[in-house]
């Protein structure tokens, strides 16, 4: 059977691959959306933080023998803590200024982080093995599905929806949202708003590091892995609507699917299809698909 001239097996497998890539986009754009939505900072260091997350997992394994499962927890904690330090020492001073200052500062930080890792480990990247429990794959009939990729989708979606739930449905999330709307009043109610904001940035950064650990067994762990991805992820955030939590998750997955299909029908365009959609969305709905018009 064929769908638009493409064998259905290939079509089905590309949809699945699209979903897998989409879950990376979702988890990364979610982190960006939280940071932008609650802090008004365009975190250009997000790609570098994703890369560092992967490197922490690699270093933990090769230097200290710490396995994947521990790294999945350890790396976000370490890189998230680094995020907290950055927020306390640098970003905090920029909240009252234009968005551009935050963007420039985080862009500079990203260059520094990438430079340090390139200097230490070179550019070719390091190999990280798939953990034993997730090795191999299953034959789905239309494709061979590596178990690890399936796990990536499950883990990414669980973390995405857990985060959405925390922000939209819990008391802590309510404080967060209120604290960014009107910090004075929330502060007057006895809630430590600066601490909330620090926590938020740390959490957003930890999400990037988590995605980095998920990515390590699939891609070569390399200083440039984040830089290659970050522009697409920014496009996802813009399409979803800057700052919209649900928007970033849904668009992340959706654009992964569209990109996957483009690779079958017109592979040469697969690198630009996301930006093509971004242009159209911005023309029709300038605030993004899920964004609220300012």
């Amino acid at each position: 059977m064929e769908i638009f001239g493409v064998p259905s097996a290939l079509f089905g497998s590309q949809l699945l691959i699209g979903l897998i890539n989409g879950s990376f986009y979702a988890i990364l754009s979610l982190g960006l959306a939280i940071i932008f939505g609650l802090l008004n900072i365009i975190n250009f260091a997000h790609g570098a933080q994703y890369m560092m997350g992967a490197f922490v997992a690699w270093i933990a394994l090769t230097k200290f023998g710490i396995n994947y499962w521990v790294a999945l927890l350890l790396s976000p904690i370490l890189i998230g803590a680094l995020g907290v330090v950055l927020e306390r020492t640098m970003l905090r001073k920029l909240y009252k200024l234009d968005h551009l200052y935050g963007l420039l500062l985080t862009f500079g930080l990203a260059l520094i982080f990438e430079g340090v890792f390139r200097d230490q480990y070179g550019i070719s990247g390091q190999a990280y093995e798939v953990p034993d429990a997730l090795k191999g794959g299953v034959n789905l009939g239309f494709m061979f599905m590596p178990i690890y990729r399936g796990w990536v989708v499950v883990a990414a979606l669980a973390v995405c929806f857990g985060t959405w739930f925390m922000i939209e449905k819990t008391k802590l999330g309510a404080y967060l949202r209120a604290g960014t709307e009107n910090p004075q009043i929330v502060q007057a109610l006895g809630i430590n708003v600066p601490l909330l904001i620090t926590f938020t940035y740390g959490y957003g950064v930890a999400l990037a590091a988590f995605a980095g650990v998920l990515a390590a067994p699939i891609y070569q762990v390399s200083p440039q892995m984040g830089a290659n991805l970050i522009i697409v992820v920014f496009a996802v955030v813009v399409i979803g609507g800057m700052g919209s939590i649900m928007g970033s998750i849904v668009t992340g997955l959706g654009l992964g699917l569209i990109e996957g299909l483009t690779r079958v029908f017109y592979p040469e365009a697969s690198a630009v299809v996301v930006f093509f959609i971004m242009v159209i969305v911005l023309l029709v709905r300038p605030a993004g698909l899920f964004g609220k018009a300012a």
Partner: protein
Amino acid sequence: MHTKKLLSAACTAALALLATGAQAQISGNTVKIGVLTDMSGTYSDLAGPGAVLATQMAIEDFIAKEKPAFKVEMVSADHQNKADIASNKAREWFEREGVDTATELVTTSTALAVMKVAKEMNRVALMSGPASTPITNEQCNDVTVHYTYDTYALANGTAKAVTQQGGKNWFFLTADYAFGQSLEKDSSAVVVANGGKVVGSVRHPFPASDFSSFLLQAQASNAQIIGLANAGADTTNAIKQAAEFGITPKQQLAGLLMFISDVHSLGLKNAQGMYLTTGFYWDLNDETRAWSKRFFDKQRRMPTMVQAGQYSSVLHYLKAVKAAGSDEAPKVMAQMKKTPINDFFAKNGQIREDGRMIHDMYLVQVKKPDESKYPWDYYHVKQVIPAAEAFQPLALSRCPLVKK
């Protein structure tokens, strides 16, 4: 007092002239070598700082052994893989800093840009890093030497060997830019010429990180061989993901351009069994091992063919300057072309009139993890491809310098 000073200055100048009489044609009595390479980008592991080190080693060895009457200096710069940066830097070096030769130039676009500037300024360009064949075909000139390898030799090595060993059906995974397309074209021709068939290809954006979609298309083609017409991180990611999706070992991969730095970063577990063509392997004989060990002691990595070729080309250049007694491009080029190259990198290597340095190439197969006995023990050398067979014959050259 004033007259005395003038007189002594004149005497010193006269003495200096006498002393350097033999090298009167070497400008400023200094030969200055510019290393223009990728110091921080995609190709910095295979060229970059290692190529700068190789240049330094060549200069030190030349001075120690040949004891020239002139001085040798080196400058280096990062061309960031951008043609405009490369040509501006080369122009600045030639015009204002007295640089005699621009060397290395990984990335075809930078190489093509700099060889034009070198021609215009009448200086020598020594290319150890770039791969594309136009350098010695349509774009060739009389001041450029293409030293280490090119896409023709790569295709002629790997694609030929794999096809002759029974890998008749090919599918190409190609980086969608000039280099990938030229590698696919050269390799397809070799496959067909050896009785094979190309059943399809897919062009992926450059750079890409996720190859799963493209690999599934390659898988669906049922080709025996998936030819990777890409380089660096694209190749390593594609290989890693092919294993993940169970494509290898059912279908075989052929890396059409791979460096030892790629194999090192992939690890033998992922790269085992692959064939590749290289101009140099550190563990070939005592000579290559001795030089590579010196390189390793400083760089903590074994040299790639680009870095070894860089040493050899710079040394050959300096010897030619000494023998010609001049740093003028035509004289040095004439000397370089007439002298065979014999060092650890090349035996009886020779620079042809189109600027192509021809030397033996090696078809190697990546070892299995349990076959590797010591660090960087990565290759079985399967076949030595003689210089005359490895490179495009002069008869097929499209270089205007080659008289038809």
